[in-house]
């Protein structure tokens, strides 16, 4: 039996100090029993001879000094897993909340996981077709990648993520696919939107959902994404499934971490976030990937909202340094009525170059993508110049580029929420745009591709 302690000496915020403890383990799980018999859980944050600092997940309301009982469980936080977790909804601590039965576990997994040995990793190279031109054509997602969406309040990141979850597929293969969704401090509406999207498409059967809503305990938010990723690792590496993990909203997660850090009186880093925010985020984002000899994979799409649309805020900044690119949503495009409002220029997929081209998408894809980027960037620059000087003072070529940029936004980026474009469709849209420009401007494209696609107007008959 576990020994119970009634020696809580201090309660501050979400933290308890327990005295006269017999050597608590670092990160050990504790159970707190209140006077009314209700139970809460917490975790040891700091341990020294005879004293432990405990963080309570569900809040310290009702916990009294010298009255509540504390039990140290001798193990770290675990998630019970079995194939039956598919189709289930859990709260942020991994307890089922869909009215179904409890999980009879095959195994209990440490939610902190262990780092994947870099030697054991397999490089992600399989193209995932999301059916969205701005992603497939220019910022290609590959299987095993971690590609966040940098959004801001009022932008349709939820719809975009749901569209990706609906449409994502690897070409030419029938494989077991699963979605793990982690809601971190979002509203009931937003969480419900995702769940009903999954339900409507029947995807709910192969989904696992963890929900920590805006009014759920803040500290619990710190373990929710780890629960989700542990479930994802089980599905990917034990059950050979292709797992897509969507975590939203990472900004709420980071704020929860800051709150706990402040309560511990730690020396803050930038903007009050703890100095270890980078390492902390990395231990989650790095859980994406593929492993040699295993069929499954984990692809992560974390969503975060940039405070004040500021990309240099610590949360998007540190995320961008860890993840393999980012999809950035832009308010101006949203105002122009473009969906999805993806600003392709600052967006990036670092794994694109290994996932596209001959044998993967099409041999001209890398060149087309580079040329579209360069041309669109030039068009945007010319647009800026035109707003200062007026279009009349621009060269003919610059005016052409402005037209190009406009067409690009309207025919390439813009698409329907339920429009699922094939990669061929996306590329021929690209060529249609590039044909607006004179041949000598297309320096990024090798001659053989120009001959085949630029000179040959046949390919413009896109299969729509």
């Amino acid at each position, binding site marked *: 039996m576990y020994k119970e302690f009634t020696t809580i000496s201090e309660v501050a915020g979400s933290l308890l100090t327990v005295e006269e403890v017999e050597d608590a383990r670092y990160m050990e799980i504790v159970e707190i029993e209140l006077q009314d018999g209700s139970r809460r859980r917490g975790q040891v944050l700091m341990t020294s001879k005879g004293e432990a600092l405990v963080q309570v997940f569900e809040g310290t309301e009702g916990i009294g000094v010298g009255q509540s009982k504390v039990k140290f469980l001798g193990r770290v936080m675990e998630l019970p897993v079995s194939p039956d977790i598919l189709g289930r909804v859990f709260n942020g601590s991994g307890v089922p909340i869909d009215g179904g039965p409890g999980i009879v576990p095959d195994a209990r997994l440490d939610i902190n996981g262990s780092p994947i040995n870099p030697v054991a990793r397999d490089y992600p190279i399989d193209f995932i077709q999301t059916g969205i031109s701005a992603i497939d054509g220019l910022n290609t997602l590959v299987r095993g990648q971690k590609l966040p969406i940098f959004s801001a309040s009022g932008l349709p990141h939820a719809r975009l993520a749901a569209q990706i979850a609906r449409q994502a597929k690897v070409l030419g293969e029938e494989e077991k696919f699963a979605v793990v969704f982690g809601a971190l401090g979002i509203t009931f509406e937003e969480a419900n939107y995702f769940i009903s999207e999954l339900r409507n498409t029947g995807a709910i059967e192969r989904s696992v959902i963890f929900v920590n809503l805006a009014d759920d305990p803040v500290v619990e938010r710190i373990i929710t994404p780890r629960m989700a990723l542990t479930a994802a690792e089980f599905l990917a590496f034990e059950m050979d499934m292709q797992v897509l993990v969507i975590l939203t909203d990472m900004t709420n997660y980071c704020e929860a971490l800051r709150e706990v850090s402040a309560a511990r009186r730690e020396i803050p880093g930038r903007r009050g976030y703890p100095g270890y925010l980078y390492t902390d985020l990395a*231990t989650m984002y790095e859980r994406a990937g593929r492993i040699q000899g295993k069929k499954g994979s984990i692809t992560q799409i974390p969503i975060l909202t940039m405070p004040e649309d500021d990309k240099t805020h610590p949360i998007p900044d540190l995320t961008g340094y*860890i993840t393999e690119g980012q999809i950035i949503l832009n308010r101006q495009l949203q105002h122009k009525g473009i969906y999805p409002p993806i600003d392709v220029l600052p967006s990036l997929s670092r794994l694109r170059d290994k996932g596209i081209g001959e044998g993967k998408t099409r041999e001209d894809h890398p060149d087309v993508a580079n040329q579209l980027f360069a041309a669109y960037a030039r068009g945007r620059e010319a647009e800026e110049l035109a707003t200062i000087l007026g279009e009349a003072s621009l060269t003919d070529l610059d005016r052409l580029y402005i037209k190009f940029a406009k067409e690009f936004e309207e025919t390439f980026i813009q698409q329907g929420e339920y429009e699922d474009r094939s990669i061929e469709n996306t590329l021929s849209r690209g060529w249609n745009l590039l044909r607006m420009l004179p041949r000598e401007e297309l320096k990024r494209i090798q001659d053989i591709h120009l001959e085949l696609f630029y000179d040959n107007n046949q390919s413009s008959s896109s299969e729509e």
Partner: protein
Amino acid sequence: MLEGSTKGVILSVNGPVVVAIGLPGAKMYDLVKVGEDKLVGEIIGLSQDKATIQVYEETAGIRPGEPVESTYEPLSVELGPGLIGSIFDGTQRPLEVIREISGDFIARGVEVPALDRSKKWDFHPLVEVGEEVEPGDILGEVPETTAISHRVMVPPDVRGKIREIKEGSFTVEEVIAIVDQGGEERPLTLMQRWPVRTPRPYKRKVNLDEPLITGQRVIDTFFPIAKGGVACIPGPFGSGKTVVQHQLAKWSDADVIVFIGCGERGNEMTDVLMEFPELVDPYTGEPLMKRTVLIANTSNMPVAAREASVYTGITIAEYFRDMGYRVALMADSTSRWAEAMREISGRLEEMPGEEGFPAYLGSRIASFYERAGKVIALGKEDRTGSLTVVGSVSPPGGDLSEPVTQNTLRVVQVFWGLEDRLAYQRHFPAINWLISYSLYLPHLEKFWRENVAPDFSANRNLAMQILQQEAELEEIVRLVGVESLSFRERFVLEIARSIREDFLQQSAFQEVDTFSSLRKQYLMLKLIITYYQEGLKALERGLSLRDILSIPAREKIGRAKYIPEEKIETLEELIEEVQEEIANKLKGEVESNV
């Protein structure tokens, strides 16, 4: 190593920082084994009988009362055959072996020696019995890989007469020589150990006068780094730091490459591991992996080991430098190293300096970069070896005023400033030519003159001027429009664009473009400069800008980068073509006027 070490006990655990009591005789930076799992740690603070320890592995589950054992030895690396082609974690544990033991995920407390104990190496002695040897002298050679011959050296603390020397196959622990050091027998093996935080000794440093040729045009031609020099690459995320580092690791004309992935992505290390055995070194024709040592402490691996990883890497690099090799070390990213220092410092509740970094940040950075250089190594034969260090910096928000960048800029001689604006335009490498610099330019002048072409520097300087001028002219265009510029100025803008797009931009992923020899770089730039000079002359003689810009050779300038090395002479023909076409246009102009 002292046997019978006394055991202490853990007093408290706070993240990677553990406080223990009862370790008599413990010294700063001694290596300790913490807890029942024997996690590896290092003593970073002593106060009376308490020792503060940073643990290199995850500490969850550890509790007060568990034992702590000191090895009474500082964190050291094993130096000997078997380093090349291996991948280690931050404390030199071989990741391949860890995988065999603990599977796809890294378990805690795995104790494995850095170098394979069972593998036999062929050793050919180069000294004879009775010979006097001093530290650094070469005892013999081991063909470690097809690209690198491992020179087995007399360790820095051994000197005397060779009493015995063997030839044949040996493991790294078997005795290959015995030295009589003033009557005392010193058995020597293929392997030696060295504490990572102490720089390895050498005779003296010498001046740098040779460039590290990287095959990257913007670097070699515009902002070169000398062999033995130090450079930094700061840039916001997505600006291509890692790609530049990888390009340097691939194409630099160094003998040995040490690549440290410090707190970065796991997939990037996998990329190197998968790609390097396939890629061929343009200088030796051997696979790149045969000259590369990898240190991987990715962002999700324990933070204390990340702090150690840069020292582990640079000590290995110094060891090869001492053999007389030209070594290049890439550290990606030094900001993660600095953050690891900050995290540990925070846990120790030290008084923070700027942005929470410890006050000793600057001195640590400086002493790390100071370990680079070109040296005369220990030993009778005065071998020259060099160690070039390139560190990437990841400034938060891309803001270069932050402490890590500023402290780094104080010590490095080359600055390759990456910019996200260029990256958005897919101008790669996104090195901004207006803010970057290399202080080695004057030292390398002679090399260019003698080994490439007499006008190499002149062309470079002219190109730089044109780019500067472009920046000024663009200001004007932004204010009053392109109409206000003279034809001459508009021509300058066109040439600047050509320098940017046809010379500075270089694709890391295009087979031919990924590497340019110095000769090719010279000819490519000369091509653009010739067009500029001939064009200017023609403009003065009345030819219209439209005519100059419409010569057919112009499209070929844009595609010059795709000309393979073996057809480099077509570039010389192209230069003549440009001259002829402009001359013809001029002739046509004159005739039509007649």
